[in-house]
């Protein structure tokens, strides 16, 4: 089945130690998104890629970076994780960018910062 895959499902990192979360998709979608979801809160968009074009949300901290080496893979890098970065990180894809395109979500990576 075509899907969005996130690895690892659970990640523990130390305060200030860089960490990378991975997302891959077999849907061949043009757009990939990264959301941060803190406990009991709405998912918050961090950034998205339309093909190779990177689009950062205005309020996404500089501590968060992303890479998309090819259509299938997208990475979220947190350069110096703080305790406040502990959250569920959701990757999503859509065929194209626009209001009519459904987003397909991965299962998420739960990040713990110690």
């Amino acid at each position: 089945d075509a899907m969005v895959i996130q690895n690892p499902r659970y990640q523990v990192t130390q305060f200030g130690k860089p960490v990378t979360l991975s997302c891959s998709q077999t849907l061949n979608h043009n757009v990939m998104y990264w959301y941060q979801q803190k406990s009991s809160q709405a998912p918050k968009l961090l950034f998205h890629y339309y093909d190779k074009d990177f689009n950062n949300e205005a309020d996404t901290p500089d501590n968060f970076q992303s890479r998309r080496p090819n259509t299938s893979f997208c990475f979220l890098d947190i350069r110096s994780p703080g305790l406040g970065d502990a959250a569920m990180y959701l990757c999503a894809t859509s065929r194209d960018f626009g209001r009519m395109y459904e987003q397909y979500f991965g299962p998420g990576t739960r990040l713990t910062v110690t």
Partner: protein
Amino acid sequence: AQTVTQSQPEMSVQEAETVTLSCTYDTSESNYYLFWYKQPPSRQMILVIRQEAYKQQNATENRFSVNFQKAAKSFSLKISDSQLGDTAMYFCAFIVNDMRFGAGTRLTVKP
């Protein structure tokens, strides 16, 4: 500002009964899409139902239907004949440019 409000953090319903989840939103745009997503425990978020703002007819997908009131900026989800597998977090969302989510309603279906 474009915001989504789900006023019911938690709800429960007996199996086979009907439940309605509330959602209100705020936008100055006239053309947008509305969605309900379901996130089962430890599983990925999946689309339940979508509604285009220009369509007056309420969307229906099997046991799931919406009551879309554009003037009131209201988009509630009705689940009929609730099943145990409906237990999940439900997120209301809308998209003009970027997807905006509500904080979610945790629904528990009791046997």
